[in-house]
């Protein structure tokens, strides 16, 4: 096929160029909105089907991307096809009723009619110069723009309208109302926790209280959905647990370290006494001179031994008792200067070893005791009644601090209390109940991409409920294990704005049309309402109960059991 050669004059070329530009513009005006309208229409249909739980949910961002792709496709359709000059000429002829003048002038292949061709070209040039392309190809407002606009409005409405209260279902309205009430309660709790944290200098509690207050505010303002709020609460609980673990670990380490140091100091003191000819507290062959001294020292050593044991077991009550015994021993008096000096060194060592326990007040008190003892040993102050009372007072103060729990322990307990309170609030609210009830099939958590997996029979009691992020295939690669859910929560906590994929194990009710999630929430409210001093027992019971019901790896169960057993044993 030969390539056509066109012999166009300047006027004809210009006319064809102008016509080509106008045609391109008209095509853009037509095809871009048209493609946008069609794409938006298709996306809208898909969104409707997803709203009816027929298809997988789609995010607004994905919709926007698809619509933009459609618009780009329209632009491609409008601009990509090459427009041949002859085609443009023919099209212009049709529009302007030029009776094949342009195409004839462009092709002019008639042989032996040169004169006629010249005449025809001249005539065509005159016509080309007189053509009004604006009138010929008017850039009018095509109906496709209106159609695209309407389709876009429909799409936006499909996302926006369901968020309006007027379109909420009765269940959703109930959920939101319950969420607001819970938000108010949670704010009170957060304020209380913040106050306690400020008074007792509880840094971790202060952080959690702040976060809790923020969540409570968003729940009150309905700036979050009930489902998201509950997930956020779950994440917060998880964080609190981690904080508790960290506090407990640090405190345990610090106390263990202090107990170890105290033990070393006691051994050193023991060897020093033995070296000086003093018998050990259990030695029956002691002299009379040393007997009274040894009696006071014996009591002091016994008290310090008990303190060391209590610290090792992290038993505040025992620690307080030990300090009271030490004070009683000091009150008995008659300690030699060297004994006093040794005790001073021991208290100084204890103070140093409790640096990481997170209690400056305790450290300060212990240092003060050490200093007073040292002063008595060096004779700078007299071991009279008043100085001994002062020392006794300091020892009692240290005992109170240890007995009441050092601030870090308070942090741990405050967090537990908050978790308990949160659990109480939520478990008693309609909000919580509605969250725990997931309708199936297909009725998942709107907005989170949760839905019932269609491949699983409704009769299956171990159905999996999928929590998936926007733009990801639901639960892709997840097996519904607790570890998977933990990872989901962890990811959610790390990147709260991006919902990760996850799948959690659920179970059906006897009716077979509801799904519930087995979650590891806070301990049950009844158990945690016990006094703080029985927190360990309660905690253990709760932990073991939770572990027995949830799907927790055996190693983790063992770890928790050992932890509480240790606490119990030390008590």
């Amino acid at each position, binding site marked *: 096929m030969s390539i056509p050669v066109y012999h166009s004059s300047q006027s004809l070329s210009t006319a064809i160029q102008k016509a080509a530009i106008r045609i391109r513009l008209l095509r853009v005006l*037509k*095809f871009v909105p048209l493609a946008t309208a069609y794409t938006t229409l298709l996306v809208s249909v898909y969104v409707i089907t997803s709203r009816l739980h027929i298809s997988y949910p789609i995010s607004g961002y994905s919709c926007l991307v698809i619509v933009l792709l459609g618009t780009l496709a329209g632009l491609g359709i409008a601009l990509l096809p090459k427009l041949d000059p002859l*085609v443009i000429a023919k099209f212009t002829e049709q529009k302007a009723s030029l009776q*094949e003048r342009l195409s004839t002038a462009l*092709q002019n292949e008639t042989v032996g009619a040169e*004169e*006629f061709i010249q*005449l025809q070209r001249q*005539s065509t040039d005159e016509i080309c110069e007189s053509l009004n392309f604006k009138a010929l190809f008017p850039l009018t407002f095509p109906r496709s723009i209106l159609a695209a606009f309407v389709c876009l409005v429909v799409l936006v409405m499909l996302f926006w309208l369901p968020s309006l209260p007027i379109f909420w279902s009765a269940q959703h309205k109930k959920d939101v109302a319950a969420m607001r009430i819970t938000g108010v309660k949670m704010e009170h709790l957060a304020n209380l926790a913040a106050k306690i944290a400020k008074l007792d200098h509880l840094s971790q509690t202060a952080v959690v209280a702040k976060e809790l207050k923020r969540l409570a505010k968003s729940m009150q303002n309905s700036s979050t959905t009930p489902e998201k709020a509950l997930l956020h609460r779950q994440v917060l609980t998880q964080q609190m647990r981690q904080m508790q673990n960290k506090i407990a670990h640090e405190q345990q380490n610090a106390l263990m370290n202090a107990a170890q140091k105290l033990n070393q100091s006691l051994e050193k003191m023991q060897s020093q006494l033995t070296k000086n000819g003093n018998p050990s507290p259990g030695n029956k062959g002691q002299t009379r001179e040393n007997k009274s001294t040894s009696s006071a020292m014996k009591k002091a050593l016994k008290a310090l031994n008990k303190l060391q044991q209590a610290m090792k077991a992290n038993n505040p009550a025992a620690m307080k008792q030990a300090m009271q015994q030490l004070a009683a021993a000091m009150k008995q008096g008659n300690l030699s200067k060297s004994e006093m000096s040794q005790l001073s060194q021991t208290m100084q060592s204890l103070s140093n070893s409790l640096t990481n326990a997170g209690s400056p007040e305790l450290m300060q008190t212990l240092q003060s005791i050490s200093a007073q003892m040292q002063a008595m040993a060096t004779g700078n102050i007299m071991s009279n009644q008043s100085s001994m009372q002062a020392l006794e007072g300091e020892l009692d103060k240290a005992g109170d601090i240890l007995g009441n729990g050092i601030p870090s322990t308070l942090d741990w307990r405050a967090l537990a209390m908050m978790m308990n309170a949160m659990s109480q609030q939520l478990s008693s609210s309609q909000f919580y109940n509605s969250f725990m009830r997931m309708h199936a099939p297909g009725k998942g958590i709107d907005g989170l991409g949760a839905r019932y997996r269609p491949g699983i029979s409704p009769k299956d009691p171990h159905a999996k409920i999928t929590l998936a992020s926007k733009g990801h295939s639901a639960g892709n690669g997840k097996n519904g294990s607790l570890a998977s859910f933990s990872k989901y929560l962890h990811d959610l906590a790390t990147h709260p704005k991006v919902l990760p994929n996850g799948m959690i194990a659920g179970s059906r009710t006897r009716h077979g049309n509801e799904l519930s999630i087995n979650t590891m929430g806070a301990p049950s409210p009844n158990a945690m309402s016990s006094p703080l001093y029985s927190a360990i027992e309660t905690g253990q019971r709760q932990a073991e109960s939770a572990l027995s019901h949830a799907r927790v790896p055996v190693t983790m169960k063992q770890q928790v059991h050992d932890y509480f057993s240790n606490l119990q044993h030390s008590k």
Partner: protein
Amino acid sequence: MTDLESQTVKFRKSFSQVKHEVQKVIVGNEEIIDGVITALIAGGHVLLEGVPGLGKTLLVRSLSQAVHLTFSRIQFTPDLMPSDITGTNILAEDSSGRREFRFQPGPIFAGMVLADEINRATPKTQSAMLEAMQENAVTSAGIKHKLPDPFFVLATQNPIEQEGTYPLPEAQLDRFLFKLIVPSPSYEEMSIILDRTTGIEVQTIEAVIDGEEIMQLRHLAREVPMAPNVKDYAIKVALATHPNNEGATSKVKQYVRFGTSPRGAQAMIASAKIKALVDGRYNVSIDDLNSVAFSALRHRIVLNFEGQADGISTDEIIDDVLKLTGKTTQVKLGV
């Protein structure tokens, strides 16, 4: 103004003058008059079909008066012999008493011949016109006698009186450039006809063009350029009338037995060129082809039995073909 331009101006002027003169007598029927003048310039012959009394013969007589050509009228009858038309060799005696056969030209030897009621003659006589119409010559006793140039046959036929008539064979029909259907006059036209024919005033027609000028106009018309896409359209239309062609419409496939011959496309293009010049253009357009397609093709399409039984006219077939072919040539850029 160039020489060519002045020639084209003269072309339009001559055309309109002839038309004006004819219209002095003939009321309405503008398309018929245009068709007849176009055929005259294109060098083709015209078959006029219409019921009696519509002025077919008058039209031809008026045209013959408007153009300076010798005119003869042949009234076709069943007993008309071919030699009655073409002429014959007769025994003639000269002044010296010597006898010889001499060719006596028939009425066909004229610039303009009116073959009135051509379908009343026998096929034998009708076929006597074949050579004359195609080759502008008559062969008698082995001697070819050239007809005058231009030679223009205007035949008439009555479509309603079928008794004792002999429908023209396809070969004969194909010789006609146009077949023009003369319609009945409208109310206004009838009123004017009555005024003109029942009064005292008699319109006189003047000869405004002679044979030589007609030949010049014919030559000029043939030079009009035509774009390949327009020629392509003419070809497509002609081929689309054939039932076995790919471009044939469903109607063509159902009702047509034979499509047009190449003479049909030739007739369309030749007459479209004249129409372009008359319209003041220097190129042939698709509209020109469409406007002459009915006249040029309607007698060249042969309907099958089904078409005849269903009362389908060839004009319906042509209309269908033009619509379909027109669609295929339309440029659609989506705007």
